[in-house]
């Protein structure tokens, strides 16, 4: 509930984290998560972490190239990351299965190329658990 202090309505600033499971350019949930992230930041809340899991790891691929008249999810997340220093974490185990690799992972796994986009980092599931522990609100985007 907002509190009223004089003529100002003071809404509590909250710490959000998002878990995003959906493949980009397939499920609308991948786009909904970006819309929600923009909205909560616009409302003055904090986005503690976005954890990309399951097929959501493909959102962190630097090779995605949608047609110019379609939503560019990667560019959207990268712009938001730069503006707000977001912590965009791609689950390393889910990403390895699905072929989203950083330079060091590509080296370690002896793969011919890397495709993790700037602004995203690989980390373990502990980062999801940490986000749960540190955040006032956790929202799952899947489907």
């Amino acid at each position, binding site marked *: 509930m907002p509190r009223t202090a004089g003529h100002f309505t003071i809404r509590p600033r909250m710490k959000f984290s998002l*878990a995003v499971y959906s493949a980009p350019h397939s499920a609308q949930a991948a786009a909904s998560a970006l819309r929600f992230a923009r909205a909560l930041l616009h409302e003055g809340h904090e986005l503690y972490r976005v954890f990309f899991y399951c097929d959501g790891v493909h959102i962190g691929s630097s090779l995605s190239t949608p047609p110019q008249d379609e939503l560019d999810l990667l560019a959207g997340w990268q712009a938001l990351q730069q503006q707000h220093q977001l912590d965009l974490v791609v689950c390393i185990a*889910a990403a390895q299965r699905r072929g989203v690799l950083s330079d060091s992972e590509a080296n370690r796994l002896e793969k011919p190329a890397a495709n993790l986009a700037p602004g995203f980092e690989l980390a373990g599931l502990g980062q999801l658990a940490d986000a749960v522990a540190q955040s006032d609100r956790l929202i799952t985007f*899947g489907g």
Partner: protein
Amino acid sequence: MTKRLLALCRQAPYGNALAREGLEAILAAAAMEQVADILFCGDGVFQLLPEQLPADIEQKSLQRNLQALPVFGVEQAFICSKSLAQRGLDIDTLVQGELVLVPVDDSAALIASYDSVLSF
């Protein structure tokens, strides 16, 4: 600051990876000594059917993940009574082991008692 986390597991095993990746997430939370509980509901109750033999579809059995739960301190799992009834299943016929299955009639009240819910 301790947050109580509930994983709402609604997917059957094997048809998609969400059942497995959900259990992996909850194991990770438990390994960090968080309060992490599970509610099997909907088709998620099928994860607990005994004698799953997925070798011929080239998958690993989910039983290993389920059996790892008590090792990391998740000693019980909630299971939605209504979902069982809809599927003609009896809780006594489901996999037993270290993991204790607790039937839940009022899942609304259970869910509301947690700080965070991850859906799988």
